[in-house]
């Protein structure tokens, strides 16, 4: 084997480059991940119609029923019941809603803050840049989960708080990447030509910078979706996320953990699979987008 690529034949060089640098490259469109994400979104939207039971009300009379295919299971509770007799399937369905709402909103909040600050700091430079970058550096030094736990401990658990916390913790990731892109865009000749043409800074940032970083922001957002969902689930698992009795997947696993040693495996395995599927799908989609939209981010 060899990695010498010919400097000529530009088309081929590009093909070879994507061969070697794309990390999780997939052949073509990631159909299965997108289907899974759409399915979860569908379930989240129509949770009220789809769920057979109220996710928050159970009956102690039917605690710890196993899934239907196991001895003692029944068709009434396909995936069994939990320690207070709530239907696991219904809780999973409503849990999808929590994950979707928290994930998407937090990613959006972080993305908007991070992208805007990244552009401003990268393009304007000077003091604005120094301040944004120092804050970014410092906040990135705090492990995201630890930082989120700290914030959650201060403000107390609620869905809205979790969204704000995740937005606050993760905007720095966008800011760092976007700023880097802006710095290189700034050196590109079309930006200098825009200055020569008399465009104002506002116009340049809006018309020449933003459209050229938006792809990176989208790719980042897709990749961040997985990260945010894991963090939300971890916070809920640790008891500082979505407050009970709301059915969040992480919370369900924390509750189910107690039953694990005595064999109530379905309480932890099912929500775990849900989280895993969603995160994997988001990551696969993000990787495909990265290769598709933005060759510069391939090494990310």
């Amino acid at each position: 084997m060899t990695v010498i690529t010919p400097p000529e034949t530009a088309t081929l060089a590009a093909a070879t480059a994507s061969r070697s640098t794309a990390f999780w490259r997939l052949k073509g469109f990631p159909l299965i991940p997108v289907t899974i994400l759409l399915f979860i979104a569908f379930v989240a939207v129509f949770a009220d119609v789809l769920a057979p039971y109220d996710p928050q009300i159970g009956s102690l009379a039917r605690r710890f029923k196993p899934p239907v295919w196991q001895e003692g299971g029944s068709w009434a509770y396909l995936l069994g019941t939990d320690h207070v007799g709530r239907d696991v399937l219904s809780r999973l369905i409503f849990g999808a809603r929590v994950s979707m709402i928290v994930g998407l909103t937090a990613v959006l909040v972080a993305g908007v803050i991070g992208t805007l600050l990244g552009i401003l700091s990268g393009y304007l430079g000077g003091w604005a840049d120094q301040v944004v970058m120092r804050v970014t550096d410092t906040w990135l030094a705090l492990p995201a989960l630890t930082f989120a736990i700290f914030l959650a401990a201060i403000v107390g658990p609620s869905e809205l708080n979790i969204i704000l916390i995740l937005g606050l913790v993760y905007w720095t990731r966008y800011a760092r990447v976007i700023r880097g892109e802006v710095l290189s865009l700034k050196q590109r000749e079309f930006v200098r030509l825009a200055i020569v043409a008399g465009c104002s800074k506002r116009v340049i940032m809006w018309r020449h910078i933003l459209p050229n970083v938006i792809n990176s922001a989208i790719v980042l957002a897709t990749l961040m979706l997985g990260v945010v969902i894991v963090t939300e689930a971890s916070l809920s698992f640790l008891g500082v996320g979505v407050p009970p009795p709301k059915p969040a997947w992480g919370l369900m696993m924390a509750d189910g953990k107690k039953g694990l040693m005595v064999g109530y495996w379905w309480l932890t395995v099912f929500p775990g699979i849900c989280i895993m599927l969603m995160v994997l799908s988001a990551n696969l989609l993000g990787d495909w987008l990265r290769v598709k939209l933005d060759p510069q981010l391939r090494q990310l």
Partner: protein
Amino acid sequence: MTAVLQAEDVTKYFAGRRGLFGGHRGVVRAVDGISFAIDGGKTLGVVGESGCGKTTTAKLVLGLEDPTGGTILFEGRDLVALDAAGRRNYRKSVQAVFQDPYASLNPRMRISAVIAEPLITNETVAPDAVRTRMLEMLDLVGLPARSADLFPHEFSGGQRQRIAIARALVLSPKLVVLDEPVSALDVSIRAQILNLLRELQDRLGLSYLFIAHDLAAVAHMSHEIVVMYLGKIVERGEAQALAREPLHPYTKALFAAALPSHPDERREDVVLQGGSAEPAQSAERLSLPSALPPRHGALRQRGAGGARRRRSHRRLPSL
């Protein structure tokens, strides 16, 4: 006749980068007291090696950098003293074409928007008038009208450079700064662009500031050439005469290093040959003979014999 643009003793110093905790570094004299003038309809060529200050010169003329000292006169008026309207007028009158045709066009804008942007930014023109003007420009640079609705990635390097030229000319500027406009292009495309630039100059009476490292291209395009070395102009003169008979030791060395255009012109390497004991860090930069007087002799005016087309009123600084 007055020059379109005149630079007098212009300097640009850069301080070493100063961060929040950065100490003060030495001053870089990117451009160090240069003077030149560009006449209407003429081309001034600038040659020199990397780091000689030619790109900084272009930035100063384009207003991308402010000079540390000296004056730049546009149609006889000092740029620094211009009011807002005068500055706008200057912006409209001086445009640029840069080296990299792939970086010169915003990949997210259609060609129509790329070309029309200077027009929309600087003037209030009705949309259909903008469109008409834009199509006119496409025609001028030899591209079909349907190009307008495409995106930059659909064009080859040479075509993109045509688009960049169309954009530069949309405001009918008087002066166009051409910073290495063909060095990123394929050999067979270069001549197309150089011919186009020449043709547009004749047709529209444009002045060019032509910057390149390819001496033959500069000699071919320019009426007058200045040679820069370490931020200073070391020689200037009528293009043909300077190319035929360089006077300054650096210019001599530079032109001697130029590649021949025909095997018969092969020189047996007069210069740069003798360095068996290479000084530690100076291999990149040819060191000038120490006989060269440091300041006053740095700029030699060419003798009358070699400068048929040279204008008589050209002033040289403090000789």
